[in-house]
């Protein structure tokens, strides 16, 4: 086994006192994300899921173009990096050729809901047996905070400096509600990772999404409403507060579609 387990250097951190350990599937590398950003937490939840389900040998992830383009540096699973927006097409290719594998995409809102809308909708509509992890931070983080299809009305970004105007820029796109209408999706949910309680709920949802692909009944789609404190130009604490007050009313948390028993 080549995984390095977490190295403890404090005398307090002895196994008896252990309440939390980093999954060995998160590589020992400093994350490239801004402090307070949700990406790192979401990575960890996926890796914990893979570890707990013991499916490493059968799991393939797809990294997008966006802030999480380097997800493969941090995640210990096999990963392919996709062209901007095309993660669901890659996942389709792999999943069709390896029908018993766990294939997941990890995508931002620009990636999944703008340039990759067609690939997303069609993968969902074909009912591909994949997990789609959709990180919605309402903005293009990587390219410096431009407007995304998910940007809220009135929200200021570098390409909507006076706030998003519906008459020019249209309406924020609720991709998750949209794909929930398609018969090809099996499990659709919206979660967040801004508090410990929400992290636990999100973990449950992600784990359920992976487990449900065993039924081969279609896409498991998990949206995570997340912050982009750099793009939003807020401190992490303010960003989380702003997210609760503005994002959640528009993007309400909870299950949208669950498989009937």
């Amino acid at each position: 086994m080549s995984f390095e387990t977490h190295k403890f250097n404090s005398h307090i951190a002895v196994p008896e006192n252990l309440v939390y350990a980093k999954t060995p599937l998160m590589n020992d590398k400093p994350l490239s994300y801004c402090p307070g950003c949700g990406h790192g937490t979401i990575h960890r939840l996926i890796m914990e899921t893979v570890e707990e389900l013991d499916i490493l040998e059968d799991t393939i992830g797809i990294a997008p173009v966006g802030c999480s383009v380097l997800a493969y540096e941090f995640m210990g699973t096999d990963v392919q990096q996709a062209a901007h927006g095309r993660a669901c097409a890659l996942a389709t290719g792999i999943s069709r050729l390896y029908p018993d594998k766990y294939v997941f995409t990890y995508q931002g809102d620009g990636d999944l809901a703008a340039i990759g809308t067609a690939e997303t909708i069609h993968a969902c509509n074909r009912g591909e047996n994949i997990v789609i992890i959709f990180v919605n931070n309402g903005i293009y983080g990587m390219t410096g905070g431009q407007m995304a299809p998910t940007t809220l009305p009135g929200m200021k970004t570098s390409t909507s400096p006076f706030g998003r105007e519906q008459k020019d820029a249209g309406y924020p796109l609720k991709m998750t509600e949209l794909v929930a209408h398609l018969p090809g999706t099996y499990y659709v949910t919206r979660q967040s990772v801004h508090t410990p309680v929400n992290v636990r709920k999100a973990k449950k949802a992600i784990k359920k999404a992976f487990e449900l692909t065993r039924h081969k009944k279609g896409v498991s789609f998990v949206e995570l409403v997340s912050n982009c404190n750099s793009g939003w130009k807020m401190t992490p604490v303010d960003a989380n507060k702003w997210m609760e007050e503005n994002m959640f009313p528009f993007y309400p948390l909870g299950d949208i579609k669950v498989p009937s028993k």
Partner: protein
Amino acid sequence: MKGNEALAEAAILAGCDGYFGYPITPQSEIMEYLMAEQPMHRTGMVVLQAESEIASINMVYGGAGAGKRVMTSSSSPGISLMQEGISYLAGAELPCVIVNVVRGGPGLGTIQPAQSDYFQSVKGGGHGDYKMITLAPFSVQEMADFVALGFDLAFKYRIPVMILSDGAIGQMMEKVVLPVQRPRWTEQEIREMSPWATVGRTKDRHNNIITSLNLKSDVQEEHNRQLQAKYKTIIENEVRYEESYCEDAEVILIAYGTSARICQKAVDIARHQGIKLGLLRPISLFPFPEAALIKYAEKVKGFLSVEMSAGQMVEDIRLVVEGKTKVAHYGRMGGIVPTTDEIIENVKNLIN
């Protein structure tokens, strides 16, 4: 069999694992044949109609990155849509076969045959410094033969291989000898043969990553250098061409695909008329048969490049020949095929 159908059947026989495509004339028969044949029941091969060529090429990327023998086919406008994906495949060094049954352009152009995607195929087509091995079939037999050859080269060099055909070869009916069935690889075989593939991480290795991203300039430059070194090895080892009547020729026609078939006829007719005409047919367009051209450049009065385009391959001939002999071009466009009379007329002009 029709050229397109022979290629489709050859894909099944080559042990191809997956075909992903989107309909477009004049190559829709490829997917139609595969769908009707249901290769899932014969070999387990997957055939999927994608929502676009962008999706097709990225499904190919996913499958190729997981070590499978995968392919797509399209015609000119669809191949244009694939260029970003092809660039990613080249950057991530993934093996696959891409078939272009060329039609005339630019734009929606015509559904009639053309050879106007030569530049796009041999010069890269998408962004960045890269090459694809490009094979140009000139018969239904070669449509069939080049699928397995394409996969072999693709995996030998971890490179996308383009089969550059045209509407005439795709639609033409000829007798064909089909190869014997090759088995598809098992997952274990893929893990052993392609240890880089993302098939799922085993405990004895680190995670495999398929990417074309290098954020550091020196790493990217080194990656570019390695790609160029690979292309050089390909140039040294994988040139394919066929020549006829070149030894004593005064003028040599250079042509591939449909044009080469007409040129064969033109050579026969010219020889009867006492004109010493030869034909050099590049089979691989990248790598280009440079040595053969240089060999004859000193002996002939000139080369005539015959293409169904405004003159694309002729530029490569000129680059190779470097003024050692005259290089002329004769081409027709819009789906019009050059005639033997027109070709011989141009040969005579070149001699005088």
